[in-house]
């Protein structure tokens, strides 16, 4: 940006020139102009309707459906049920635990975009790495001062966070091992990894969830009883690990032979070579793809609905059948949609930022990795 303003014409002038040339192109072709006008008109109609319904005539506070203005949206439904949408059926006096679980990932992610400071990387890696375990312990309780809460009571955004984050964090080490195995020199290892990855990648997540809930209890020893949430989570983790493994493999393919040979010549063992030389480069080069996988995984957490877990989407759908708030499907879906859209779009913007920030640093990072 700054380089452009220094060398080229000023931003307003450039903008004016660009707008002018694009306008000229648009107007030169009459058919194109017609398409433009039709599209603009359609956009105006839709936009005007949405604003009028969603904001101008909307009701934000009401006791039930009948006190809402029928000409607009009835957001009061969302406002009244917000605690349930956020925390599910979690006991009211214990909700601070669920709140912590919901707020931890966004605050960790905020760290990723603030300017560099000492120890940022350590805080982020340990934070994300321990999140599944800490969140599970905090929510399940059973420790002194934390009464026990069974997993059936978990729900709403809390459950969505737990499922999405845990599946992603747990699948990451698995994905790295799978990717290494698939590119290994040992045929048996390669075959097993390829079979595992292709198996989980070839199945629909809906079928995987059914399978984990039906089959995993059969596989476990007879006296072990696992909650439905853990079973579903196991399925999603394998699914996500297989996709991530392919992404990591893509990164590994971009590492030249020279890197391995140089690391070997310097006396690095296998795991040191991977940890200090190969993985830092391979993972960095596929950060955008990793974030895309995370976005896809986050959207896919809604599938837990099919095994009867009450994630954000399912709890809103369940709330739609409340007799006091009949016929508010649009409001409910829009609320869910705004939350998912914000998170997913935010993540994709973040990935674009990473991509841009890492580009000029590339050669410097390489030498850094060598000197360590």
């Amino acid at each position, binding site marked *: 940006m700054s380089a452009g303003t220094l060398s080229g014409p000023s931003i307003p002038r450039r903008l004016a020139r660009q707008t002018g040339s*694009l306008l000229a192109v*648009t107007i030169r072709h009459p058919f*194109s102009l017609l*398409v*433009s006008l039709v*599209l603009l008109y359609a*956009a105006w109609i839709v936009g005007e309707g949405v604003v009028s319904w969603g904001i101008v005539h909307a009701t934000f506070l009401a006791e039930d459906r009948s006190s809402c203005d029928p000409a607009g949206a009835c957001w009061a439904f969302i406002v009244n049920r917000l605690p349930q949408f956020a925390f599910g059926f979690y006991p009211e006096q214990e909700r601070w635990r669920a709140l912590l679980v919901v707020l931890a990932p966004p605050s960790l992610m905020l760290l990723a975009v603030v300017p560099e400071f000492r120890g940022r990387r350590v805080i982020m890696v340990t934070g994300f790495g321990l999140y599944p375990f800490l969140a599970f312990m905090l929510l399940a309780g059973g420790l002194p001062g934390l009464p026990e809460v069974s997993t059936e009571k978990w729900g709403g955004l809390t459950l969505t966070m737990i499922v999405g984050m845990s599946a992603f964090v747990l699948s990451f080490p698995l994905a790295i091992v799978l990717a*290494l195995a698939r*590119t*290994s*020199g*040992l*045929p*048996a*290892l390669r075959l*097993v990894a390829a079979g595992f990855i*292709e*198996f989980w*990648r*070839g*199945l*629909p*997540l*809906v*079928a995987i969830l*059914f*399978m984990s809930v*039906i*089959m995993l*209890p*059969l*596989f*476990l020893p*007879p006296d072990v009883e696992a909650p439905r949430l853990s079973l579903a989570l196991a399925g999603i983790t394998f699914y996500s690990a297989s996709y991530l493994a392919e992404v990591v493999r893509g990164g590994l393919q971009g590492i030249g032979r020279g890197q391995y040979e140089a690391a*070997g*010549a310097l*006396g*690095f*063992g*296998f795991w040191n*070579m991977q940890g200090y030389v190969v993985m830092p480069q391979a993972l960095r080069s596929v950060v955008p793809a990793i974030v895309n996988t995370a*976005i896809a995984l986050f*959207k*896919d957490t*809604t*599938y837990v*609905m*099919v095994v009867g877990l009450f994630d954000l*989407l399912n709890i809103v*759908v369940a709330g739609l059948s409340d007799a006091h708030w009949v016929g508010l*499907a*649009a409001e409910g*879906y829009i609320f*869910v*949609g705004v939350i*998912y*859209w914000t998170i*997913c*779009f935010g993540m*994709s913007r973040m990935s674009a930022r990473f991509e841009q920030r890492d580009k000029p640093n590339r050669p410097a990072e390489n030498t850094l990795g060598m000197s360590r």
Partner: protein
Amino acid sequence: MLTTAASLKDESRRTDGAGAVARRQARRRRAALLQQLLLLGALAAVGAVIVRNTVVNLQARGLASGFDFLWQEAGFNVGFTLIAADATSTYGRIFLVGLLNSLLVAAVAMVAATMLGFLIGLARVSQNIPARLLSKGYVELVRNLPLLLHLLLWQGVILRSLPTVKQAHELGGVAFLSNRGLYLAAPVGWSTASLVFLGGAGATLCIGLLLARRAHRRQELLPPAHAVGMILLAAAFIVITVASVDWDVPVLGSFDYRGGVKIMPELAALVAALTLYNAAFVAEIVRAGIQSVSPGQRQAATALGLSARLTMRLIIVPQAVRVMVPPMANQYAHLIKASALATVVGFPDLVNVFMGTALNQTGRAVEIVVMTAAVYLTLTASVGLVTGWYDRRMKLVER
């Protein structure tokens, strides 16, 4: 790789002639073999524990096993079938019904998503500013929302916009639209003559297409009189066919229409959601493909006097398609798998009727899960095979 790293270290330490190298290589091979045997042994042990647990668990729950259930009567009706099936059908037939339904959804959504996605993708790179902005807005809006939300939304929209059975829209007396579905008159009682007429229509169209193709190869146009004649002949054949079969027209019963073919609204919702969601991803693939064609191609085409439309059709798109094939294959595989969401809206696809109803009734968890998994693995693998073949063909054309 484990061994390579270790042996590289070895090599740097001592270098004592050819014999030592051979010995080291033999040791390296032995180590590799041992590692692989250990891995396979560990896997076999895990597998054995799983099998043992499963057998114990199945016995404890009193569940039978074996594939004999496929020949047993299922005893339930499926809401939408492409082949004849009723409550007396076997589980094997139910499996087939579900499989065909899954394939139908996937095939329709695939074609529709490709077409819509191409359109949006072209709009993404068009010179028309509103078209570019709106298509970008569409892509960003749609692909950042979960597919399941799209599906529930479309189910709600479609069901609510349709009237009840009593007030069904009548379309020309042969089709009825209500919130229970679209009822169409179905052809029944095919006679030999009507089959012959249908064959005639098909043959005429095939011959017409062949002639047009031959003319195209010679860079000629099919004479208009021939084309019109062919089309008229085919149309006449079709009209005679329609007239010569009996039509089973749906009739309003006490609760629902009877007779004819029923297309469930769930099918429409499913196809709409899959199409609109995947179209956003296809659009991005198309955009990336088109932008991957070097600008020199467009400039050269313009210099040769090709119009913008012809440049797109003859120069840009054919080259872009080659780049688009691998990501499209991924998207198609994703779409096929996503069609399993049918179970959420209650459309009887493979997962819904077989992994759902049939599994609940028979309790043959292992068998049914294995069969369903095999189907999806075959489908996704075949997408890879077909696109691989197409990819190779496209490469050959290049030279």
